């Protein structure tokens, strides 16, 4: 049989795609489907039986899951706008063609994103320890008398977790904004200048609209990452003090591996997160993506 040129190209394309598609199916979709099935089962490991929606009805009675969701949502609502805002400002500043040593600034801001979470946790834990750097500074400035155990108190611990997140993610998102900025045709700005637009007007009427696709991408990524936040609380506070910094992903982990395993319940909670992430992403796409 002789293939036409078009068919051959199609086949070649599929041949390149197949390994990646297979890997994604095996590594992502199969476990996802198994988790869905397991969310309808209860019982001891290896002896689980189908019990319908029992895990899902249990979630409604679980006050700790509700607390964990609250911690997570607070995290999303506070950190995401700060990350996006700061990343955008930094990207615009660092995109200035007249700025010198740009490469160094960009690298410095991006480095936190490349540091492993465990290493960041060690750094921040020593910074905010009772006899750490931050306390020494505050004591020397006369603001505090004795060291304050920042990670030992609920509110300050929550704030520090957010600070770590912002510190790590701003540089990462900034890279996307920089790429977006560089794809805007310089001619548009020149034309605006000739028409007498101020730089503020240029920012709001050219930069922001042209960056919309990038912002949408950054927003969706940040929100999804924040909902699934896990590393920070595990490495910095282990969810404590009490459960004050326990986000939902950490709670799910504890339900599955923290004590007597309850895999069915953990899977049911995971499915809820999946649905929440799905709905939020859809909403953002609806509102933000006006492409035809």
């Amino acid at each position: 049989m002789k293939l036409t040129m078009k068919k051959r190209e199609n086949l070649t394309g599929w041949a390149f795609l197949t390994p990646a598609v297979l890997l994604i199916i095996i590594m992502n979709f199969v476990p996802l489907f198994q988790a869905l099935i397991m969310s309808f089962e209860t019982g001891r490991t290896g002896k689980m039986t189908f019990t319908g929606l029992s895990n899902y009805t249990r979630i409604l009675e679980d006050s700790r899951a509700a607390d964990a969701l609250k911690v997570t949502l607070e995290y999303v609502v506070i950190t995401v706008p700060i990350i996006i805002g700061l990343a955008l400002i930094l990207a615009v500043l660092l995109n200035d063609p007249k700025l010198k040593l740009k490469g160094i600034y960009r690298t410095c801001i991006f480095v936190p994103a490349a540091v492993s979470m465990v290493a960041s946790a060690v750094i921040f834990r020593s910074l905010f320890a009772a006899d750490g750097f931050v306390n020494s500074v505050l004591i020397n400035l006369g603001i505090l008398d004795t060291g304050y155990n920042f990670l030992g108190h609920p509110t300050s611990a929550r704030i520090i977790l957010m600070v770590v997140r912002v510190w790590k993610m701003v540089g990462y998102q900034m890279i996307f904004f920089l790429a977006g900025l560089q794809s805007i045709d310089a001619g548009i700005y020149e034309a605006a200048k000739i028409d007498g637009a101020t730089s503020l007007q240029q920012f709001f009427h050219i930069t922001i609209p042209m960056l919309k696709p990038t912002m949408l991408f950054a927003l969706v990524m940040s929100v999804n990452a924040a909902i699934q936040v896990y590393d920070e609380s595990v490495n910095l506070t282990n969810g404590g003090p009490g459960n004050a910094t326990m986000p939902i992903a950490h709670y799910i982990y504890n339900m599955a591996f923290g004590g007597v395993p309850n895999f069915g319940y953990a899977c049911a909670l995971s499915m809820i997160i999946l649905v929440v992430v799905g709905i939020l992403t859809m909403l953002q796409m609806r509102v933000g993506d006006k492409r035809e």
Partner: protein
Amino acid sequence: MADIILLDDSMVAQEVVSYPDVFMDLTDSGIDFSEFSAGKVACSTVDGKNYGVPFDSGAAIAAYRTDILAEAGYTVDDFTDITWSEWIEKAKVVKQKTGKAMLNGQGAYNQLTVMLTSCGGSYFDEDGKIQMADNKKIKKISELYLEMLEAGVFQEEVGWDTYIGNMNNGNVAGAMNGCWIMSSIQAAEDQSGLWAITNVPKVDGVSGATNYSSQGGSTWTVTTACKNPELAIDFLNATFAGSTELYDNILPSSAIATWIPAGDSEVYKQPVEFFGGQEVYSMIVDFTAKVPSCRIGAYEASARTAWVTALTNVAYSGGDLDEELAAAEQTVAFEMEQ
């Protein structure tokens, strides 16, 4: 899967219940469990069956910096055979005179276990039902612990690194944990001769209170995946359940035997320079024999976490102790009804 697994004492019941048919019943294996300390054997007994060969002791010690105590006018004898109320009063004096907390810990976890085990307490009643709200021992220990925090004589640390760090740097006057903590204490070689060991305080006004406790320590289990169980059991019988020589060799790493005959060995009677020439090993063998046996449930870890959360809420968020303990009980009950 491995043929033999080493488990933390408080985890044996949890693992045996969570993973049924994975661990081998060793009750009639020929291992003589009467040669081990009774409290230790109880940790690996589930529904009357033995699932483990006890290994290193978790007997609790109170280790103090004698130089820091001396600054406050105390010796280690002042902290021997006392109650927690007496301890707190003396600790306040140490804090006032030296500015140092007596103890620290990674959160409350290990400290609470030391206190609960010392009076033979449990989170569960005879039927295995969770019982934390209406539990005199837990209530009393909670009050004592909160008083320690309030007075600043116990310092909660966020991580294990800061726990050991502050202990080694002399930022606290002592350490209280399972005796395996000795190897961490001795890491600060410059403090040789400055430390001394004694028993732990006992909980005031509750039944079964003693000056002896256990925290950590571990147990060998055999899995059903083992293709040659006779060999595995014979191995354990000839080593951890039958060789004083083995225990002599591993003693320097602070793995102290719970196999009673090992304690009679000469090696255990050596004075240890680091602890001011005390015969710490034979002391700990003696402590081990006096540890009350406790009812450890499969949901031990969940109950402990819930208790710590309750106390944290009282200490830092102004919660009411009775309400928080009731909430903790509810949390564990919720997990248990899965």
